[in-house]
């Protein structure tokens, strides 16, 4: 296959994909809305610290606990810091934790699952046993235990979130690899003298990939919630770092005395982000696999 032949075909495939995406979005405008939200979140994560009106760490005790106003859109917290700026700046860290943990579990779970499904035998048994053991724990509780044991850092929050999601990824990848193990194109590749590893890398993985990507966007919301939950109970992120979970925790004490904005806006940001990822995941799943539409 030369480049000249490949390019028009790739263009055609791309056009078809865009047309299909447009069709799905027209069918389900909610996905389009979720996509716009997603772009906004990514922009806030990238540009956040450069566009906010106030420094998220500068405190001004004369301005402490002021309700939302034209000057401080989301009000100020107990140290007089601007809540709006903190919420926006926090996007980067929360987004990073979610993306990093999902990418990590994609690698660990995806590879382990594909290997288990393709090779079967003891690989399958070992991966299955590990997944079952993780599933025997309530997931958030296990994540707490892991962070407590490995140390109270952001890296370990990422790792713990990835580990508790491992069974889900491993199982899906295993099932997808398993059904393709005896497929015609795999047999063909094997007959043409490809090694098992080569078949795994060039035949099986590319086929499992789209389904795993959908899984990633579906679990992204859960990853953010899990990480925010851990930092809410005081694990991982430390004050004064702006992060949604810890901001809600800091604002919680003021909820009973009526200063609602302190905890409300970071909580709302968290909710909007999770909502967006869930909707986007559903939309993406429709695009990749129309049969699973609910």
């Amino acid at each position, binding site marked *: 296959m030369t480049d000249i032949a490949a390019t028009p075909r790739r263009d055609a495939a791309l056009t078809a994909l865009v047309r299909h995406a447009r069709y799905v979005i027209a069918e389900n405008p909610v996905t389009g809305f979720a996509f716009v939200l997603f772009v906004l979140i990514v922009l806030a994560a990238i540009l956040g610290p450069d566009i906010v009106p106030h420094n998220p760490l500068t405190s001004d005790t004369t301005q402490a606990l002021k309700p939302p106003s034209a000057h401080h859109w989301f009000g100020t917290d107990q140290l007089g810091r601007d809540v709006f700026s903190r919420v926006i700046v926090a996007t980067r860290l929360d987004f990073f934790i979610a993306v990093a943990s999902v990418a990590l579990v994609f690698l660990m779970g995806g590879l382990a699952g594909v290997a288990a499904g393709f090779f079967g035998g003891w690989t399958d048994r070992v991966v299955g046993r590990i997944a079952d053991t993780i599933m025997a*724990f*309530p997931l958030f*509780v296990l994540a707490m235990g892991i962070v407590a044991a490995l140390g109270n850092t952001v890296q370990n929050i990422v790792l713990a979130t990835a580990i508790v999601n491992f069974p889900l990824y491993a199982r899906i990848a295993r099932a997808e690899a398993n059904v393709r193990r005896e497929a015609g194109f795999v047999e063909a590749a094997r007959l043409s003298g490809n090694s098992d590893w080569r078949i795994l890398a060039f035949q099986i993985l590319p086929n499992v990939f789209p389904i795993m990507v959908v899984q990633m966007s579906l679990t992204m919301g859960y990853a953010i919630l899990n990480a925010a*939950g851990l930092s809410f*109970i005081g694990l991982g992120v430390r004050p004064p770092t702006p992060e949604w979970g810890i901001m809600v*925790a800091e604002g919680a004490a003021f909820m009973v*005395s009526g200063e*609602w904005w302190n905890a409300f806006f970071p909580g709302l940001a968290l909710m909007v982000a999770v909502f967006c990822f869930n909707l986007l995941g559903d939309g993406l799943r429709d695009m990749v696999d129309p049969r699973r539409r609910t």
Partner: protein
Amino acid sequence: MLTMILKRAAMAIPSLIGVVIVTFLLTRALPGDPAAYFAGPAATPQAIQEVRVKLGLDKPLIEQFGRYVVDLGHGNFGNSLTTGQPVLTELRTRLPASAELTLLGLLVSILIAVPLGIIAATRPNSLIDHACRLITTLGVSLPVFFTGLILVYVFYYLLGWAPAPLGRLDVFFDPPPQVTGFYLIDSLIARQPEVFMASLKQLILPALTLGIFSLAPIARMTRASMLAVLSSDFVRTARASGLSSYTVIVTYAFRNAMLPVITTLGMVFSFLLGANVLVEKVFAWPGIGSYAVEALLASDFAPVQGFVLTMAVMYVALNLIIDVLYGLIDPRVRLEA
């Protein structure tokens, strides 16, 4: 039936072994020297060495594991560094508080989610169906601690309907004499209606928070499985025979549709037990979750380990109960086994 239960119980054993191994490995993964860690920050090298020998940390890993299992068998979960109390005693005194909250939360969510799912399934694409979809999507997106705080703000601060979110009982009341450890039940046994009301008031908001959180998967599953059952042949036959729609939906469809819902309860419990920790923190609930969180922040590992182990064992047991329940309800599962 008994063989089925025994077979299923045997299947839980590998999970339990896995749980014990993982909780053991978690202690060994503690950063730095566990002996120095357990001896405390001000310990001399001799003291650390003593602790090492006392805890058996100088022995090979496999022997340490054997020792850990023997300790667990004797109910020895270690002592908390901060309170000096045995972990098992504290977990036992605090467990009823968590259990009462979690079970009430589950009850609330079933009472809302199941009817909602059924109505949504009987009227697809109606207003209530869309409402059901919106509620379930919001339910999964709402961070559980955030829901709790909003409820506190609205019902305690704004409306003044709920008491302050500070534990199981108002300070003016004494807890009822302990029988089950559940204040709602114990106060009824002791015939103290005012204590019952007071503890119910404390329970409503946290239970509602957990309920809203676990509502989504139950409602979604109820709707999906009701839809599947309602389009099946036997429902069509029942309808064609002229049975009232109430009989068709409640007697015929509902009982069949509940089976997949019971299966989802396993997953719901995984979320509930985790969410419980967060809700306990928001409402200053004196359960095992807040005990573990306090210990976590004080870098006191024995309670955390005991907590993780207790939660995992309870979760394995709950899954076992759910499966047995499934067999009791559905004769087909029994016959297959």
